[in-house]
């Protein structure tokens, strides 16, 4: 039984003590009658004692019952169907509140969808009784079981509802239902019996992916009923920044030449959703460098994207001057990020997007080759290492600093001082050396391997494949072409060579390849960067054992607009873009004139420079995560601290030994990764889930079919049109299960009160004590006289 007014009920029950107190008080205050013939009183009392005690108890019980019934009637009790019949239980309502990015959509009145959902949740809680239980799950990915199992502390749950904040993640209904399945299917039989699951969402495309089926939770529980707001039939348009990609993810400050300018090309992808797609529009895009430090703001670059009617996607390239930011970051030991923002619209969370950029004063490159002593040889006697040094640092600008590493002395200190390693003599590297190179790559390093010129039989590829965990194999012997072969006219377009994409055809023309250590068979897991004219791969790139995370996997399966526009292979783009940690590049010809004339051709310098710079950036990763996922951090990071710019509502995130966050980041923001000693390790950007911000409406039938995939029958899904109907929707369920008993209680109280009056009159013996009544009674009792 549930009391609608519990306080009144308790007060009423306490009032039952009033008759007892009155009885006790009056009993004390009465003046005794001093009586002489007490022996007869005692004798009569002994005869009547049991009857008198019974009468008094009956009267007291009747009076207490009257008070109790009145109190209960005032408290408006509600009997539950099963409870009234015995053995029943209270209702259980689970509130699944969508606080994903789409719930921040504001309507014309300025009220957000989340506020409407919270109001509906409050209405539902208000309609519950004290014995009912309510659970709360917030759906911002990953779904958070705030109150599961359900609790009877309705006030506390209501407070938790008030405290729900919007996230920048998608709605994770799958996760919530999985959690509920564990709860409803638990051993507690009452948990799933007659439970009501209220899914409070607008079911926009950003929240509900109608194409992805839900876990079949309710099919196993026939009595569960689903309550949901009717899907919105109109929603404001939303423009979102879906991608920000700096063309070069590593900025080397040493090459600015002291002028403080470092122009960085940034590609910004935008998308329109909702009703606004049909209308022409214009969106102002701003891009700037941010440092994550309070008060440090660099000038922004601004451009306007004009939308044609029906256009939903657009990409723009912007030039951001990174010079001051990069210099400042180098001096302060911190990193910078590129931030793209657009005008404020219905969904604020996806109006901004950030991409961290690695800043280096110079790039140290280790060249693993046998050290040569003596004066520099003439051009015709240059060995591969010499050619490589010339290509990497042609102007002695200190932007790239080649360091020689002897193949026999590859150790951790020497590797820790470089960003990339070019292996010229892999045949001289022993097993331990390959192991150290493997760990170097795993830590985010770039290794470029060239075949050695000396041996005729190459056994080192086995060690390399083992150390790097590569699945592709190389030929045992170098193959020499009968006629020099050129590079393919149609080179694969990869991000690694995107900067020289325009000039590559002209630069590749004079290049001839005489000899290669070919890639044996299909290079599984590797991407082809440069192809020979015969169609064989000449330069390939691949990661070590791929540590693909949920976030990166999603990215791999969803090529960006940039990829599609440039025609790059999705896998290679993803690999080179940001997601993997560490990169291995294999060039099939040694950089010497006996294998190829590339060292003497103009392509040599830009090719090596691009391989170095893009490779380093790709190997280190972009440290970008979408909201709702578990962020990854640079190696040796222990914690992600919110930066001053975005840290007002953010909490720090601990990083485990594997570089993975212990908690998911539900809010977008820029974090500063620090190690155990507090030293900065770089910036990590958590961006709003762009897909979660789509505001396209979906048909009621579509959503019903989607919800039905959870096992809920069509009859068990009930729509509510607004939050005020939420409680009524629940009440309609309640009406079938409950019946108000206030009126019957009042009637019962009246009957008991009448009985009490009669009993009091009868037990008081006033009738028979009154002389006139006594005569009347005696007459009635006389034989032959009937009443």
């Amino acid at each position, binding site marked *: 039984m549930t009391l609608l007014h519990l306080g009144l009920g308790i007060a009423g029950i306490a009032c039952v003590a009033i008759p007892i107190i009155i009885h006790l008080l009056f*009993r004390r205050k*009465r*003046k*005794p*009658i*001093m*009586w*002489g*013939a*007490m*022996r*007869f*009183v*005692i*004798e*009569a*009392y002994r*005869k*009547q004692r049991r*009857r*008198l005690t019974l*009468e008094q108890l009956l009267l007291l019980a009747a009076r207490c019952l009257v008070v109790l019934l009145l109190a209960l009637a005032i408290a408006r009790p509600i009997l539950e169907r099963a409870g009234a019949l015995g053995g029943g239980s209270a209702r259980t309502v689970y509130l699944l509140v969508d606080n994903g990015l789409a719930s921040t959509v504001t309507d014309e009145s300025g009220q957000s969808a989340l506020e409407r959902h919270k109001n509906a949740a409050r209405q539902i809680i208000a309609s519950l009784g004290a014995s009912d239980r309510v659970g709360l799950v917030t759906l911002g990915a990953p779904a958070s079981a705030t109150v599961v199992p359900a609790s009877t502390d309705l006030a506390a749950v209501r407070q938790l509802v008030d405290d729900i904040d919007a996230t920048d993640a998608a709605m994770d209904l799958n996760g919530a239902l999985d959690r509920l399945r564990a709860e409803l299917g638990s051993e507690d039989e009452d948990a799933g019996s007659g439970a009501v699951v209220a899914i409070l969402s607008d079911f926009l495309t950003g929240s509900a992916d109608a194409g992805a089926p839900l876990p079949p939770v309710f099919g196993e529980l026939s009595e569960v009923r689903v309550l949901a707001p009717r899907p919105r039939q109109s929603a404001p348009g939303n423009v979102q920044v879906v991608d920000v990609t700096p063309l070069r993810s590593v900025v080397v400050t040493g090459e600015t030449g002291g002028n403080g300018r470092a122009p960085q090309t940034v590609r910004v992808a935008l998308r329109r959703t909702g009703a606004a797609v049909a209308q022409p529009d214009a969106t102002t895009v701003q891009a700037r460098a941010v440092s994550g430090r309070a008060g440090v703001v660099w000038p922004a670059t601004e451009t306007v994207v004009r939308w044609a009617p029906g256009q939903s996607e657009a990409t723009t390239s912007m030039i951001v001057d990174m010079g001051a930011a990069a210099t400042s970051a180098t001096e302060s030991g911190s990193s910078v990020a590129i931030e793209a923002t657009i005008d404020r619209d219905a969904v604020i969370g996806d109006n901004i997007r950030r991409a961290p950029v690695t800043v280096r004063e110079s790039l140290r490159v280790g060249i693993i080759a046998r050290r040569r002593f003596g004066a520099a040889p003439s051009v015709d006697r240059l060995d591969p290492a010499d050619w490589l040094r010339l290509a990497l640092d042609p102007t002695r600008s200190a932007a790239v600093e080649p360091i020689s590493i002897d193949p026999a002395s590859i150790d951790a200190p020497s590797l820790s001082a470089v960003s990339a390693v070019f292996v010229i003599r892999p045949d001289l590297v022993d097993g331990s050396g390959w192991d150290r190179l493997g760990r170097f790559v795993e830590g985010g390093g770039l290794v470029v391997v060239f075949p050695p010129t000396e041996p005729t039989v190459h056994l080192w590829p086995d060690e390399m494949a083992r150390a790097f965990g590569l699945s592709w194999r190389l030929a045992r012997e170098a193959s020499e072409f009968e006629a020099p072969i050129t590079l393919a006219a149609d080179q694969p377009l990869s991000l690694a060579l995107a900067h020289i994409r325009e000039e590559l055809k002209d630069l590749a023309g004079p290049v001839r390849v005489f000899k290669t250590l070919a890639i044996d068979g299909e290079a599984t897991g590797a991407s082809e960067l440069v192809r020979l004219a015969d169609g064989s791969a000449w330069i390939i790139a691949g990661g070590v054992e791929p540590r693909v995370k949920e976030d990166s996997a999603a990215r791999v399966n969803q090529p960006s607009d940039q990829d599609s526009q440039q025609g790059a292979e999705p896998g290679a783009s993803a690999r080179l873009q940001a997601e993997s940690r560490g990169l291995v590049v294999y060039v099939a010809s040694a950089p010497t004139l006996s294998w190829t004339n590339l060292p003497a051709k103009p392509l040599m310098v830009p090719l090596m420079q691009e391989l170095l710079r893009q490779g380093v950036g790709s190997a280190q990763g972009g440290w970008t995560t979408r909201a709702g996922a578990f962020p990854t951090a640079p190696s040796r990071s222990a914690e992600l601290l919110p930066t001053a710019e975005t840290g007002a509502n953010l909490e720090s995130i601990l990083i485990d030994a594997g570089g993975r966050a212990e908690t998911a980041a539900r809010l977008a923001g820029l974090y500063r990764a620090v190690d155990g000693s507090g030293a900065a390790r770089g910036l990590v950007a958590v961006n709003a889930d762009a897909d979660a911000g789509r505001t396209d409406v979906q048909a009621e039938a579509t959503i019903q079919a989607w919800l039905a995939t959870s096992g809920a029958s069509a009859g068990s899904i009930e729509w509510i049109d607004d939050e005020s109907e939420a409680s009524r929707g629940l009440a309609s369920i309640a009406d079938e299960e409950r019946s108000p008993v206030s009126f019957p209680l009042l009637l019962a109280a009246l009957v008991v009160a009448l009985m009490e009056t009669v009993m009091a009159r009868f*037990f*008081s*013996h*006033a009738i*028979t*004590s009154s002389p006139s009544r006594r005569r009347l009674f005696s007459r009635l009792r006389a034989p032959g006289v009937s009443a």
Partner: protein
Amino acid sequence: MADASTQADRIDATTYLHPRTLARLGSFELRAKHIVEGVMSGMHRSPYQGFSVEFAQHRPYVAGDDIRHLDWKVFGRSDKLHLKQYQQETNLDQVILVDSSGSMAFGSRMFQEASGAGRKVGPRGELEWTKFDHATALAAAFSHLSLRQGDRVGVTVFADSVRAMVRRSSQQGQWRQIVEALSAHPVEAETDLPRVVDLTLAKLNNRCLITIISDFYTDPEQIRTALARCKHRRHDVIVCRVVDKQEEEFDFRDAAPFEGLEGEGRIQLDPRAIRKDYLEAFQEHAAQVRKISRSFSFDDMRVCTHDWLGPTLAAFVAKRNARIKRSKTG
């Protein structure tokens, strides 16, 4: 001075005898039902034959007899010597036992209404005319009646034992002593009638008229025992049962605690609920007392505190005298 006036008030006969009662007592005689063994000449028959006017019997002459009592007429007719014996008339000794137990302190009649002195409160400051007050008035009336006849009267005030006693006497001043003894007020103790009767009988060497004035709220067997001893000693007994109207009717309207005057404790009850059983018990006890007294051929008398003593006493005396007369003639 105050003590003197209080003493004077206490012994004022009008405190106990209303003038209306006294006026009714003037025309009655309290006669002994049996032969009494008085020491003085009076209006009552003596067991001893002596010189009197009322012939009793003849008996043969034996040597030494006074020849003045020879009946010469009989000697002339039968030539035998017989003596004439006459019934000796003597005085009546009355012993009045007044119960002063706790139960006698109950009364529901206002003192001012019942008292002959027109007082608003009794000598002890009480507002009600208690059963003890009524008993003392009755004892005073009996004493007054006997003294006026020249009989000896003694009074004993008792409860569980003898509280006060006035020896039998018919002298002047006896009335004063009796009234003074009756001024004892009730105590919170039960009645021990057999013991009191034993103590009283121990001091009696002749047959007396014993008047027991009490509510007799004690065990009937004790009453029987006490009366049986009186009968055994050939005393005449008048059982005066004093009751209060409220005790007989038990007419209460509100629930209230009842507390016994003899230390029975307190009971919270609704008197209307037990009225029927109470009245049954009360009446049954009264009937038992009456039956016991009649089983010993003693006169019993119900005296209600709300009734005037004069008519009650007059009716009783008249009825008693008529019964005595019938027994003589029969």
